[in-house]
């Protein structure tokens, strides 16, 4: 009965309220069918790939955890080698934050440096959700995960979230942008811009996870909105290294975004006032840096 042709089919096994399929379908709505998709190991691969019950309506390959970017580059090279990619098929590689920030970082850097004709999309849910919410280097400061729990000697994750979009930009590629699930028009527009690039582009999408962050499933999109408005996830765009767009926020204190998530609920306690201040400082620095 669905009227539009979604390229990530229904019947996938994502948890109820997962925002990743929302992002993927929006990306594929922009690319259309003339695309080859590569996904790294992670939630997206797992919930879409049961043999004979695949959700992908496009050619799709899932290689390993750490090589989606390199495999995507190989796909693009094959298209180019065969007929100069005369049909202008796009290659989109999806990786989660674990794959992008951590284990697949080297292969991603190589792909960006070579400027391979691949749109790399990081869907960022800020931890290893597929294996049960372990900490990645995309996990924000003070968040608890199953491997950065809060305890007598710990307030949760002790490191700041790595700044992947800036690292991608430093490779000198034409197009780098961030987006959040809470603004799909903006996301689609950015995918379209990435498609116009001949060479590598990097898109980073905030996709909240109700299981890993600890909030009711119906709040999944709202949680992205709150995170963005708190200044904790800047929505920006770099074209040829220049900051060409910044999404203005309706500023809220970080508590308004944090206290509705179980992973930050310990920060309500007085003993963690210092950490809460640090999170606000991160948000303030983002707001100042990008003029959010």
């Amino acid at each position, binding site marked *: 009965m669905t009227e539009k042709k979604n390229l*990530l089919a229904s*019947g996938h096994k994502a948890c*109820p309220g997962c925002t990743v399929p929302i992002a993927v379908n929006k990306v594929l709505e922009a690319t259309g069918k003339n695309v080859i998709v590569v996904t790294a190991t992670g939630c997206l691969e797992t919930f879409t790939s049961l043999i004979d*019950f695949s*959700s992908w309506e496009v050619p799709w390959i899932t290689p390993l955890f750490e090589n989606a970017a390199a495999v995507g580059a190989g796909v693009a090279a094959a298209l180019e080698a065969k007929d100069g990619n005369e049909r202008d098929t796009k290659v989109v590689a999806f990786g989660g934050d674990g794959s992008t920030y951590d284990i697949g970082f080297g292969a991603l850097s190589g792909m960006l440096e070579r400027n391979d004709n691949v749109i790399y999309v990081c869907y960022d849910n800020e931890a290893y959700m597929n294996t049960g919410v372990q900490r990645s280097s995309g996990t924000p400061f003070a968040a608890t995960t199953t491997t950065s729990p809060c305890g007598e000697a710990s307030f949760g994750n002790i490191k700041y979230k790595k700044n992947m979009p800036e690292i991608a930009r430093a490779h000198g590629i034409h197009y780098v942008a961030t987006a959040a699930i809470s603004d799909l028009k903006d996301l689609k527009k950015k995918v379209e811009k990435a498609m116009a690039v001949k060479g590598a582009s990097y898109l980073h999408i905030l996709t909240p996870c109700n299981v890993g962050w600890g909030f009711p499933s119906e709040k999944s999109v709202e949680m992205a909105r709150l995170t963005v408005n708190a200044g904790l996830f800047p929505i920006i765009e770099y074209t040829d290294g220049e900051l060409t767009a910044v999404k203005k926020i309706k500023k809220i204190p970080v508590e308004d975004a944090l206290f509705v998530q179980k992973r930050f609920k310990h920060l309500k306690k007085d003993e963690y006032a210092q950490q809460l201040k640090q999170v606000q400082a991160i948000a303030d620095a983002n707001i100042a840096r990008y003029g959010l």
Partner: protein
Amino acid sequence: MKLSVGGTCFAGGSKANNTGVWRQTAPVVDLAKCVKCKICVDYCPDCAIAVDEEGCKIDMFYCKGCGICSNECPAGAIRMEV
């Protein structure tokens, strides 16, 4: 049926999966309130929503009952029921 060479399969087989059985709460649409903005269509993780001339229709074969549609509906036209 013999397995494919290399563990490949063809696209879109997941449409046979009845993920509606996962549902714990179900969306109920008040068509009188629906403004046909299609925000729910975009935000349904399971692509279970379509909007026709009457308004928003939810395919309960796929709907997992997450409630995002209800939360995001600007017209308050969808409520969740146990």
